[in-house]
């Protein structure tokens, strides 16, 4: 099972990296989202997975979780990571929109040119 999960993570990373390497900002953002997902899964896998896992809850009337429960620690880490990842994504998206309205392009190479032209105009 771990092997299968590792391969899935690897595929997500490969797809994310490939998209991030494109010169287009929008594809870059797609890639960022995929890599965030892959990293969350990797943290999850590093906490070990329990096949048919029981959620880490204390059953009614008990003091401790019963039986083989999933590892709670990575779950807590991932939960906040997902929300922060969303914050990062939203901020990058806004940045891209802002860049597009200022520079008129989402091509990162062209942005470089547009920016240096801008500076040239001001100087």
């Amino acid at each position, binding site marked *: 099972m771990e092997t299968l999960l590792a391969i899935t993570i690897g595929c997500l990373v490969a*797809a994310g990296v490939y998209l*991030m390497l494109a010169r287009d900002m929008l594809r870059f953002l797609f890639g960022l989202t995929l890599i965030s997902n892959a990293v969350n899964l990797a943290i999850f896998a590093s906490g070990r997975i329990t096949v048919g896992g029981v959620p880490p809850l204390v059953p009614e009337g008990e003091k401790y979780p019963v039986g083989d429960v999933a590892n709670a620690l990575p779950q807590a880490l991932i939960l906040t990571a997902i929300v922060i990842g969303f914050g990062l994504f939203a901020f990058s998206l806004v940045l891209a929109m802002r860049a597009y309205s200022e520079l008129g392009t989402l091509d990162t190479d062209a942005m470089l040119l547009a920016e240096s032209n801008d500076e040239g105009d001001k100087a």
Partner: protein
Amino acid sequence: MAQNSDQSASFWTAASIVPPLIAAGLFAFFLSFLHPISAGESVRHAWEWIPSMGVELSFFIDGLSLTFALLISGIGVLVMLFSGKYMAGNPQHGRFSMYLVSFMLAMLGLVLSDNLLGLFVFWELTTITSFLLIGFNHDSKLSQRSAMQALLVTGTGGLAMLAGFLLIGSVSGTMELSELRGMGDILRDSPMYLPILLLVLAGAFTKSAQFPFHFWLPNAMAAPTPVSAYLHSATMVKGGVYLLARMHPNLSGTDVWLWTLVVFGAFTTVFASVLALKQNDLKQTLAYTTLMALGALVLFLAAPGGYAITAMATFLVVHSLYKAALFLMIGCVDHSTGTRDARRLGGLIRRMPITGVAGGLAALSMAGMYPFIGFIGKELLYKAGLESPASVLIVTGAIFLASALMFAVAGVVALKPFWGSAAHMPQLDRPIREAPIPMLAGPVILGVAGLFFGLNSHALQHAVTDPIVGAVLGDMEKAKDLHLWAGVNMALYLSLATFATGLVLYLFHKTLRERLIAAGERLMSFDAKWDSLLVAINAGAVKVTALIQPGILSRYLLVVFSTITLAIGGTILARGLDIGTPVLDGITYVHLIVFGLTVSGAFVAVITNSRIAAIAGLGVTGIGVALVFIQFGAPDVAITQILVEMLVVVLFSVAALKLPTLPQRLPFHNRGLHAIVAIGLGAVVTGVVIGITSVPLNMNLTEYFEKYSYPIAHGKNIVNVILVDFRAFDTFGEISVVAVAAISAYALLKQRKSGGTS
């Protein structure tokens, strides 16, 4: 630099009076150690500095450090008296005095430190304060360049020296000089001996301006004259000599030590004395004679014999006395006449008799005339040269040449300006007057001291040379006696020959100077080489920056991802990866569907040129990931993932209204490289995850949370308890990030647009 001062300004200001008082107090303090130290004792004081690293702020006084401390503080008194008048009226006088005192304290720290790291810190402090002093006239391009050059050359050497010290520490296990003293054999037998030696020598040679690092010292004459007198004759450049003397018990006694010091010392001393004759500016002349003296000191530190070290110790004092006196004398002349040009000065003896006599005394000592201390110093140099274990011819020959040239230079510096023809004197609108008393004190006292110690050589022997030999060789008995008249011997013949040669050189010095200046044009100039080195370094930096910082995002990412792939992948390949047997148990068709869904969503996002399809693909992947969480017992995470995934899709869709469609793909040859990097990194991550999951996991934390979640924290959802109770502070940090990201994005969107593009 006559423009630094105002002739009528008062000497009685705090900036003039406080520094000499501080120096005098320190001088008196160190004098009180003279008696016990000359009896062969030593004193050590230590304070804990960085106890966790075993670094102590420790100070140690023995014969060697006491002599240096007395020279630094004693000449310090005279130089500071001098500069109190010389700089009086300068609006920056206070700053100057502060630098000068800071420099003196740093220099004292250097020679008194017992800990090697402490020594290094003070060493760098002298570099920094001398940078400030050389660059004191900071609006002059020349000063800026000279200060920077001195800083870079001596600073680089200092760093090499630090590396050497750390190696010494790791080989011997101690950083205290007083403990290292007896460990010379351990260091010499260590395989690290050669690196240690070379690194320490790099520090000493740069500081003491040995060839080929000599060029910064003449340039440092851009500093005000008292600085030149103090730093570049008596103190800073002697730092390197001090270091070599200090390291003598630990590092000397090998052929490498002997020959390196002999070759560099001998070459520097001859080379510098020839160049000294070439200069027109008297200050430059003296700067080159300083190089000559430093070369001679290094030359005699090479040998282990009693004569060599006695000669080194005597010459150290001799040189400090006459060099400071002559520099200050030239400062007086410059102050009164406004020039330092050897070709123009002449006939000053009637106007400035005291300066002339004082300078004459110092020059006689420099020339090595009987009965001055310089004579004794020169005799000892010859005696030590004649018994040199390296090569009698090289050492004695170098000393002979240098001494003869010194004789001629002494005449140029001290004879001609006062007794020579006044035909070329510049016309001044004010009469040339004798220098004021605070400025005269230095040359007079130092000049007379040269004569006094010549006549009372046993005093010097008792106070200085015996203790230094004791400190360097570990046995005071090895010290040789200082005699003004040692009888008729080889050294005396050499002395007489020196005088004769020197006289001839002096008589023809004008012709020689012109020849040398003409020849100098063709000689390789280290100064120019230095400039081209700096230019080359700058050009190199520009090229490297252009290469690694082109400002192209995709290239940065390519570099980053390739580096990660190669570094981790390379490690895996080199070390091998124990992935055990693939764990494929318990896989059901549900799992296969979930994983398949996740991967295929990503695949769609990669291949499509349609934004909607890409967003949908991302959504599928996100839901797939959420399903993985559900499958393996993480409902909280799964819910969060689904909600976030939904918001991502919504945001993308909203933003898509405003953003352009996806552009066509890049040409294939670019994408090929991208695909290789992407697949490589994916494979590496897969390997890493398999590697991680195949080793046992420490479950202590998880077990702690499971055990106490309900009994202590009163919560049954362990994930939530971790978030809001056990690790609440972390969570607080994380929600702060969310809030800040939101506010920043809001500010970015609501900010008024610049320009009218939309």
